[in-house]
């Protein structure tokens, strides 16, 4: 795949989201549904890889880039990940006063809420792939509760889930 196209597709995903994971529906639509460059399983693995180490939430796009075109793909994805961040500089100049206006704030909140709905829709096929028995179901439930209501780092949950998956497979 052309690296510029890869960069632009991932940039579209990062530019249309307001948190790291919220770009996932756009990525899935472009890479899994439309272009068949990734499988749901690979996308799942990319999210795992992005969350296993420390760093910002959106790092999974680097892993997506790596799956599509190895190291050059990862580099293009890295650029797509960091590019939107620099929008904050002109925004600091031009949106300093407007950011607090009710309608702009309201539009942003609506986008955040819609992002949640999109993320939920994206999770359905991934859940079908992941929940293959009681053990994965328990892992899903525990991860949801712990991440929603405590401040435990997700890397620890990933590690714990890997150990549980390993033990369950050998049992």
């Amino acid at each position, binding site marked *: 795949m052309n690296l510029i196209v890869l960069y632009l597709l991932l940039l579209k995903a*990062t*530019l249309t989201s*307001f*948190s*790291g994971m*919220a770009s*996932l529906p756009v990525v899935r639509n472009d890479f899994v549904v439309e272009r068949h460059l990734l499988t749901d399983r690979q996308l*799942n693995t*990319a*999210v*795992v890889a992005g*969350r*296993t180490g420390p*760093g910002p939430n959106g*790092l*999974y796009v*680097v*892993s997506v880039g*790596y799956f599509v075109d190895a*190291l050059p793909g990862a580099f293009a994805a890295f650029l797509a*990940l960091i*590019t*939107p*961040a*620099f929008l*904050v*500089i002109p*925004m*600091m100049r031009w949106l*300093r006063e407007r*950011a607090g206006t*009710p309608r702009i704030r*309201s*539009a*942003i*909140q*609506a*986008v955040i*809420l819609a*992002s*949640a709905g*999109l993320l*939920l*829709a994206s*999770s359905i096929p*991934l859940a079908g792939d992941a*929940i293959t028995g009681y053990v*994965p179901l328990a892992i*899903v*439930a525990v*991860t*949801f509760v*712990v*991440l929603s209501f405590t401040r435990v780092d*997700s890397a620890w*949950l990933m590690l714990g889930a890997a*150990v549980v*998956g390993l033990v*369950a*497979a050998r049992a």
Partner: protein
Amino acid sequence: MAALQRELIERKGWIRQDDFALAYSLARITPGTNLLAFCAATGARILGLWGALVAVLAISVPSTVLTVLITAGYETWRSNASVTAAVGGTVAAVVGMMWASVWLLVSPHLRRPMQVLRALIFTGGAFLAVWKLGLTPVQVIALAALLGFLWKEPAAE
């Protein structure tokens, strides 16, 4: 964030508390990863464009390298039964993590009945628009922005 706040404001004195707060609030409404936008804003406030560049690279390059190594590791060892079992467990955790992300995005907007109704309409509407109507995520986001602009959030009034 707390560590950066302590280091940049209290220990180094490089930026003021209100500049830090402005960078934080603008980063929240900047597309993409909020933490990267926050670092760009803070770096720009301290050293201009070069400061923004250095700050973003400093926070993202080490973790990006680590992510590539982890991904490559998965690729290399994916035929190994133990690795497959371990990845199977972590994939289940990803689903729980996604549902937790949904909850964390929605829950701050559930304080009053009108907010709950609004959250249900936007979140549920976006879910159905993609799942049942076949709209693309970008179309849904554009529609949500327009409707959100027209229908003010109750707390904002």
